[in-house]
């Protein structure tokens, strides 16, 4: 920072109380601190891209715990699985926020004041400035100044006219844009903070044919910000009429997902038909509904030893790979002893000795339901929350294995009952998101870009012209001051013009 114009007092003064607080504030709001904090924020985000994050991939975090339990515990203590909501990340974020405000707001005020002031007085010794030119001419003094001022006005300079000289200044917009850039950064940060405080994010799995009512109790998972109130949830309902997925026959990659649904915006309103796609969410005011994932729900019927139905319906299974090999569990608590099935749904069935059953294509071309039946206590009354996709087999005993095609029935051993694989239906994962801050973030981001463009390419120039008499001739002095390129050209053409030399090509274009 060799030719930096700002001096930093890095030694704390021997003061107590207010003096020390003022020193801390000056340090925090210096531009250098803001820059260091910005760099720190970038460095602090690196571990978030190296370690799995709970907010993005909780399963991977669990895997990490499985393979490296001791290390994982230490990483967790340092919040390395929750980097972006960790105390140290928030600390940098908040300090940066304060530092930016403390840095930019006073500068904006200064800029506002100087924007209304006249350009600076003409310095005494113009020859010490950049791009100094001097020539003598026989033209009239006042006429020369008049021509100078009209020429500079044409080039959009602001002028201060003195008896023997003219001071001109241009390019205020550069600093204005620079400040706009930094103020917009603050607006963006406000948008991010407001969005996470006043927002919510929920997931719900809906099978084809089912209707989802948007109330807090229907969600499978829900996370809310500190300022979010349950009343902010709009009371719409969505009926999943049909879900269509298209896949590429060569690569098995998905080509298109399409959800046909019927929406009722508020109770009592007329239902309307909509199509939801991956890049086309539904919008209800500040809340949007996204089509995020899909899978299959096998439909089964379980009967007891007497032949009475104890369970019937579609049960959502969790996809494990791109070919939708899906795992799930079928829990039948209303039997004595209780019955549970650890199950795998394979849309296009294949089996090898080493992998067991798996699917080779995501569409249901040859659907098979693999079942392992367990009998005993499902442990649902223990009070410990259980995954709906898994069964805790601690207090269960395996009684048999089977692989069923649609329509097939399996009579369970020992006359316990039977299970029928009736068919399957697709399910979709709808994500309900409310982000009240995103409009502010967007405006902030667009203004950041505008500010950046103008401040990088805008040019600030100052030019002074002074005339004096010597031996009957008029001496003209021209000089300038700048922090951006282009001033030399500007001054050369001005000097040429005042001397009455032929215009340069560039200028003559302007004239015509």
């Amino acid at each position, binding site marked *: *920072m060799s030719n930096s114009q700002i001096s930093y007092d890095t030694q704390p003064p021997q003061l107590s109380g207010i003096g020390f607080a003022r020193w801390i504030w000056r340090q925090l709001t210096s531009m250098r601190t803001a820059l260091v904090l*910005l760099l720190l924020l970038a460095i602090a985000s*690196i571990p978030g891209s190296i370690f799995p994050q709970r907010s993005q991939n909780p399963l991977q975090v669990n895997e990490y715990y499985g393979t490296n339990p001791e290390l994982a515990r230490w990483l967790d203590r340092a919040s390395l699985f929750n980097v972006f909501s960790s105390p140290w990340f928030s600390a940098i974020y908040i300090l940066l926020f304060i530092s930016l405000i403390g840095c930019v707001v006073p500068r904006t005020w200064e800029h506002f004041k100087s924007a209304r002031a006249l350009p600076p007085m003409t310095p005494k010794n113009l020859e010490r400035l950049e791009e100094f030119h001097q020539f003598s001419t026989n033209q009239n003094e006042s006429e020369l100044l008049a021509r100078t001022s009209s020429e500079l006005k044409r080039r959009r300079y602001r002028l201060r006219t003195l008896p023997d000289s003219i001071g001109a200044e241009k390019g205020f917009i550069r600093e204005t844009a620079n400040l706009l850039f930094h103020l917009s950064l603050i607006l963006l940060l406000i948008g991010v903070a407001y969005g996470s405080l006043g927002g919510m994010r929920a997931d719900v799995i809906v099978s084809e044919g089912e209707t989802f009512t948007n109330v807090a109790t229907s969600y499978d998972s829900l996370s809310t910000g500190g300022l979010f109130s349950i009343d902010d949830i709009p009371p719409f309902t969505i009926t999943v009429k049909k879900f269509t997925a298209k896949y590429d026959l060569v690569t098995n990659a998905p080509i*298109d997902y399409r959800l046909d649904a019927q929406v009722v915006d508020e109770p009592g309103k007329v239902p309307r038909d909509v199509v939801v796609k*991956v890049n086309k*969410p539904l919008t209800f005011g500040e809340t*949007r509904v996204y089509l995020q994932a899909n899978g299959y729900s096998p439909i089964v019927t379980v009967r007891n030893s007497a032949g009475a139905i104890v369970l019937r319906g579609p049960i959502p299974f969790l996809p494990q790979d791109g070919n939708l090999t899906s795992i799930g569990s079928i829990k039948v608590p209303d039997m004595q002893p209780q019955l549970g099935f650890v199950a795998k749904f394979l849309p296009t069935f294949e089996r090898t000795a080493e992998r067991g059953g798996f699917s080779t294509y995501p569409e249901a071309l040859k659907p098979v339901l693999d079942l392992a039946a367990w009998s005993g206590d499902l442990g649902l009354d223990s009070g410990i929350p259980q995954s709906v996709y898994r069964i805790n087999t601690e207090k269960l005993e395996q009684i048999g294995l089977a692989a069923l095609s649609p329509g097939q029935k399996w009579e369970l051993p020992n006359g316990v009952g039977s299970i029928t694989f009736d068919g399957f239906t697709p399910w979709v994962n709808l994500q309900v998101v409310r982000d009240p801050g995103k409009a502010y973030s967007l405006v902030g981001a667009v203004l*950041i870009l505008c500010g950046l463009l103008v401040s990088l390419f805008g040019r600030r120039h100052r030019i002074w012209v002074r005339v004096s008499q010597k031996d009957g001739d008029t001496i003209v002095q021209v000089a300038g001051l700048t922090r951006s390129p282009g001033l030399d050209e500007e001054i050369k053409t001005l000097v040429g013009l005042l001397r009455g030399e032929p215009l340069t090509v560039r200028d003559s274009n302007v004239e015509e």
Partner: protein
Amino acid sequence: MSKSDLAYLSNDLIYASMAICALAFLVFAYELAWSIRLGEERTTLARRQKVIRIAQALTILYFLILFAGVVTRGLSAGRAPWGNMYEFSITGALAFTFAYLVASLKYEVQWLGILITFASLLTLGTAVTLLYVPSAPLVPALKSPWLVIHVSAAIISGGVFLLANCIAAAYLILEQMEKKRAGARPEWAMRLPKLETLDQLSYRLVALVFPLWTFAIIAGAIWAEAAWGRYWGWDPKETWSFITWVGYAAYLHARVTAGWRGKRAAWLCLIAGSTFLFNYIYVNIWGTGKHTYSGL
């Protein structure tokens, strides 16, 4: 012409462009070796310039064939050719070479030709051997007009960032040489621009393209809001784009506000550029986020 014909044609064009690029590289290298042996004598100058012109013409030919290869790839898939890492790479090489050719219209940068052709060969070679995937339609999340806007902005800024980095690296190497020889350069390096010119050039390129990079991130955020339900989620690719943005922002700040020049600025430029490369290579291939479209 059917779509698979177009896909084969595209592959042939890419291979052809690599052959021409290799030729251009050899001619650039020949010229360099020649000038190291003979030194900068007046008598050979005109002949050497003729050789450079040949190399430059080959580079233009290579660029045109690669351009055709990228376009036919897009036509064969019925979309913008930016769906996986193979396609990012061939388009990246195209952008990189385009930036060089445009710069050579205005500045004396032909000396960079050997670096540009070498880097292009490396990129294309990796693309056809390690990254190749057959031409295929897009996954649903990529079906959006934002694909063209976001990815083209990111690729162009990447190409220019890398060009600025080559120049910064050249600055550091020449600076070291001049220091060792007390201000003099080895003879073959005489024709390279002055150190100050290199310094200015890499700064101008970064300043020119930094707003475009900012735009690429903003466009990506708008798209992510529609496709993934949030505009910013600290996905690894997003995180590293942010780090690159901060890196170059610090570079511009250091130059404009604190007056950094020369060695320190060049190192900062290289650090910021390496975060971009890391994002492109590491996060695309080994990353776990939502941006894993390498197709590998």
